[in-house]
Every structure is written in C-alpha cells, then in structure tokens.
C-alpha cells in the first residue's frame, strides 16, 4: 500500500473537506468555467453577429415595405387616347406609354395650379411621379375603354427620389447636387403632402409586383422572384431530401465497405467543395443542352440546386446515421427485423435531428445561391409571372437571391433599400420553410 500513499503525496491530497476545493480541483474547475465561458462566448459571438447583421438589414430594408404615393386627377383626353372615338381597344392600344406621359404632366400641373402652390425655380414637376405611372394609366384605360373622356382620380407611385426624401435618403442638400431631383421638387412634394395628395403607405407592390427597370426603383417588387424561389425550393425539397437520405442509407447501412464505397464517400464530400457556379455549368450542359429543358426555368434551377444541396444533406445524414449506437441495430435485428426494417424503424428516427439539420442548412444554401443560376439563365430581368404549377415550373422566373444581387448592382441608390428589403423577405421565407424542420427536429431529439 506504500505506493498509494506515494501517489496521494504526488497527486492531490485526497483527505480533505468537500466544501474546500483543493488546489488541483480549483484549477480543474477554473478550466471548467473557462470552457463553459468559451462556449458562452462562442454562442454569443454567433448570436451577436446575427443580431448585428439582422439589425443592419432591417434598418436598411424596412423602408422598402412602405412607399410614397401621389394622388392626382387625370383627364383621360379623348383626342390623345382615342382619336377615332370608337373605343376600339386594339385601335387604342396603338397609343404607347409615351402618349400617356403628357396626361400625367398635365394632371400634376393642374394640381399645382389648383392648390395655388408657387415655388420659385420649380421645373418639371412631373418628375415627382414615377415613370411607371404612364404604364399604369395605359393599362387602366385599355381595361376601361368607356372611361375615356372622363376625369379619373389616380394614385400614382412617387418617383424614387421623392420617396427617398421621406425615408431620409435624399435631403435638400443632396438634392442640390443630384441630377435627378431638385430642391424645388422636394418643396413641391412637401406642399403636396400638406394638401394630402402625397402620402406614404404600406407597399404591397414590393411583395407582389414584378421587377422594374432601373428607371423605376419605386415600382420594383419581388412577386416573380418569390414565385421562382418557391418553385425551386419545392423541386429541391421534393428531390434533395429523399434522394439524399436514400443515398446515405445505402452508403452507410447497405453498401459493402470497400475501396469503391470509400471512393464514393470521398467523392461526395468533394462535391460539397465544388464551387456552385460549376453546378451551373453542369446544369447548362445536362438539363438545357442535353435534355432540352427551357432556359430561365425554375425546374432547371431546382434541379441544379438539388445537385448542389445533395452533398450537404448526404454528409449530415451519414454523420447522424453513424452516431446511432450499434446496440440499437442489434436489438432490432435480434428480434428478426430485416436490415431495411431496422434502418427505417429505429435508426432513421434516431438520426432524424441530424438529417433535419442537414436539410435546414442545405435549403438555406440553396435558397441564397445566385452563381449556379447564372449559367442557366435565371439571373435575369423577368417581368412575367410564371404560371401555376406544373406548367409554371417551366416558365421563366427569377429568384430572391438573384433579385437581391441585381438590385445591389444597380446604380440608383433607391435599390439599396429594396435589396435589404428583399433580404428580409428571403429570411422570412427561409424561416417559414425551415419551421417544420426545426419543430420536427426538437421532437426527435433524445438521449439514450
């Protein structure tokens, strides 16, 4: 027993009060505390980064959800819109939007005169109105040919700079330097606001409208992009999750363990490292050039993103399958379950949290990815809504990340706000999409 005493002497003295920590225990507990603090720091770093990013996104983007409108009475002059006077729609369609612009100019000038607003040096008051206005007016007239000749009250979008003025993006000082707006126009806007002609309201158009060109940031919306992303995510979810899980089950549970399956395993991890744009190259070659699917279509986008997401899901699924203790498998096999039954009844449910995590991360990546869509034609300016499924999968569409990317590259500063607004929409979309997975994952989590 002498060596025990020796040990005690060399190591921690073992006799002693529980209430008093000996030196070594203190050190170990300090290490423990440090370890736990590292953990807290790690979580806080992640959460703080998230909060920082989110607040900056929200601060920049919340403005996109409201928009300034100007209400005007427009005289639908017959001599301009329907020279023949027989209200033939096809005839009237010959008048292009350029023909409608003067009506709007007249409307705002009339309004200024009627309100008795006088601003020295005011030029081109029509610049207050979005360029979208003519198109809206034309659509209205062509849909209601009988109202030509009447005076109609219309709510027009205000132009981007005027809208920016009320969101703090444009100031009198900046307008001085700005070639697209003058301080006088801002004063006019204030005057119109006082009369109630100008107001700022919630902007449904941001969520429902299609994209608009660079001339009209105020009219641009996410309608097409949301549909496109939705269609793509449906494809990805329907394909990537089952294929990914099936492939992992085969590789982890059934495949013989040999060089070939090692190769496959390495290969799949390697696929995860392939830059996403390369999947676009593949998609162009296979789905468009070889299989003849249409360009710019969500189905192709979905397929490409599926291929891109598969490795993520497979890696996560295999890791979780691996972590299920063999004793569970033995128990099932021992009562005469087949391997297939063992996997589907016992192993898979226990691996579910990891599978769902892989899916959440994979979908997050797929939802946010632009580069692979570049080569299959989805990084595009698309104004037509895709149809309802299933045909809609084959119609051209845009996607949320594409819209964000496009808007951040546009020159008009009004698009910065819209890009951030689109990011908010994307994140909400992501959370909604993942909500089920997150809830399911919590249900499946258990320790044994």
């Amino acid at each position, binding site marked *: 027993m002498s060596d025990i005493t020796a040990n005690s002497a060399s190591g921690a003295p073992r006799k002693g009060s529980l209430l008093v920590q000996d030196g070594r225990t203190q050190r170990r507990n300090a290490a423990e505390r440090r370890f736990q603090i590292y953990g807290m720091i790690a979580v806080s770093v992640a959460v703080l980064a998230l909060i920082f990013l989110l607040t900056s996104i929200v601060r920049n983007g919340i403005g996109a959800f409201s928009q300034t409108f100007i209400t005007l009475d427009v005289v639908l002059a017959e001599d301009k819109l329907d020279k023949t006077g027989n209200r033939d729609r096809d005839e009237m369609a010959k008048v292009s939007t350029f023909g409608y612009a003067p009506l709007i100019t007249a409307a705002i000038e009339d309004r200024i005169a009627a309100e008795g607003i006088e601003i020295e040096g005011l030029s081109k008051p029509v610049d207050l109105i979005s360029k979208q206005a003519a198109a809206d007016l034309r659509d209205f007239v062509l849909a209601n040919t009988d109202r030509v000749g009447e005076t109609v009250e219309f709510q027009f979008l205000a132009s981007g700079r005027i809208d920016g003025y009320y969101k703090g993006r444009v100031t009198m000082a900046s307008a001085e330097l700005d070639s697209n707006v003058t301080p006088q126009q801002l004063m006019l806007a204030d005057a119109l606001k006082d009369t109630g002609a100008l107001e700022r309201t919630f902007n449904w158009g941001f969520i429902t409208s299609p994209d608009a060109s660079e001339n009209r940031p105020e009219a641009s919306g996410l309608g097409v992009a949301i549909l496109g992303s939705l269609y793509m995510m449906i494809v990805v979810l329907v394909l990537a999750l089952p294929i990914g899980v099936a492939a992992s089950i085969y590789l982890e549970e059934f495949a013989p363990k040999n060089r070939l399956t090692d190769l496959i395993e390495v290969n799949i991890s390697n696929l995860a490292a392939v830059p996403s744009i390369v999947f676009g190259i593949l998609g162009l070659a296979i789905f468009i050039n070889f299989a003849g699917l249409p360009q710019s279509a969500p189905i192709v986008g979905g397929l490409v993103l599926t291929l891109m997401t598969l490795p993520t899901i497979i890696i996560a699924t295999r890791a979780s399958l691996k972590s299920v203790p063999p004793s569970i498998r033995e128990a099932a*096999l021992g009562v*005469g*379950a087949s391997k297939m039954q063992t996997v589907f009844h016992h192993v898979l449910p226990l691996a579910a949290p990891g599978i769902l995590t892989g899916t959440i991360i994979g979908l997050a990546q797929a939802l946010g990815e632009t580069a692979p869509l570049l080569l299959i034609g989805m990084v595009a300016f698309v104004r037509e809504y895709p149809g309802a499924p299933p045909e809609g999968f084959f119609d051209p569409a845009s996607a949320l990340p594409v819209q964000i990317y496009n808007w951040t590259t546009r020159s008009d500063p009004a698009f910065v706000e819209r890009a951030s607004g689109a990011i908010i929409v994307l994140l909400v979309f992501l959370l909604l999409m993942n909500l089920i997975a997150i809830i399911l994952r919590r249900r499946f989590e258990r320790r044994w």
Partner: protein
Amino acid sequence: MNDIKISASGVDVFYGDTHAIKNVSVEIEGNTVTAFIGPSGCGKSTFLRCLNRMNDTIDIARVTGSILLDGEDIYDAKVDPVQLRAKVGMVFQKPNPFPKSIYDNIAYGPRIHGLARNKAELDEIVEKSLRRGAIWEEVKDRLDQPGTGLSGGQQQRLCIARAIATEPEVLLMDEPCSALDPIATAQVEELIDELRQQYSVVIVTHSMQQAARVSQKTAFFHLGDLVEYGETGHIFTNPEDSRTESYITGRIG
C-alpha cells in the same frame, strides 16, 4: 433422445486477427435447454451469436465452418438472415431496450412478423410476454413510458419478454439472469423450462447452479475451444476433461 435442432461443425470465428472460436462442433437438440459455460472471455457470446448470424453485424468478425438449422446451412447465400433470426431469437448480454415505450418494445417483433391480427391481440401478446418475462406487475402502469427508463434488471427482463414475444423456435439467451434477484431468476428459469416443452433454448450462464438447474446439456468453453459437451448431470458430476473439472470446482477462471 431429441432431434438435432442445430448442428455446428468446425466453426471458427476471428475478430480481425484474434481467433475467438477454435474449430467448435456441437449439436444442439430440440426441446432441450443447453447451457454454455466457461470463464469470461472464452467465446460463449461469440459462439452464441454465430447461431443466428448476429456476427454478420460486426465488421471485423469472420465466421467459417458450417452451422445447420434443421439440416439447412444458415450461412448459405440463399438463406435470409432475417427469417433465420425470426426463428432463432436472442437475448443479448447487455440489455438493449429500444428508446421507445415499453409497449412498443414488446410489440415491435409481433408487428413486423404480423403475429397479431388487431390491436386487442397485440395487447394480449404484449401482456403475455411481459408476464412470462416476470415484469408485468412492475410495468403494467407505465407501458407508455420509455423502456430505457427502467432499472437494470427490469431492462433485462424486458429484453427477455421482447425476445419471446416473437415466438422463436430457438431462443439464445446470453446471461439472461445476470441482473436479476433470486425470485426473478427463478421465474425466468421457470419460463425457460416452459419454453423447452416446445422449443430449444441455449443459455449462457456463469452460475453453475443455474446451469445445473435448467439445462439438460452443457457445453464448456475454454479459451475458444469447446472442451467438453454432454449431459449436464454428467458434466457436473463426472467431467472428463481436467479443465472442466477445475472450472466447475472453481479452480480456473
């Protein structure tokens, strides 16, 4: 004399390079309880797991030799291990309940084998199995609670109940009473005796008394060899091999 149920000949098992079972041949009879005894680590579990091909699940394990069940080679490529395991049930040395409810633990086997036509029948099977496993009284009020929340001995009996719920023709039991008190042990032994009327039972045990009590045949393993196999009475009273004698009398471990 009973029919031969399982006939193993020249079985060798390797774990990687470790030679765990060395050229073992043994014939296990129907309607008989066969006890495997031997010092810890001698290969009892390993050999037992050969009999229903549970060693298939261990990557590094390699089995050679032939094992016939009712005259059919169970290692034949055509044999479906699933069917085999349905016939040859197993209670593992370490209790391994599913992380499911107690009810589902028992009902699982009958469900996948279609032993019950309806819920009532299934309930009946579950109750009967739990009763036979001598655990019904303890769990009857908590059938919906997880099997993993039971005490060690309860888990062991749960696993016994689970194994008999599928009505296997041969039941392999690896130290089924190791965590049981004398009464529970006696109940399980009674069960074994009852099972013997219809089936074969192979039991691994470290208790000579238990082997003597329940088994008709005994096999003594030592360092991977089957040293002696014969009538239990004979082995315990009149062992032929000196190692057997030493073991029984408690001189080698």
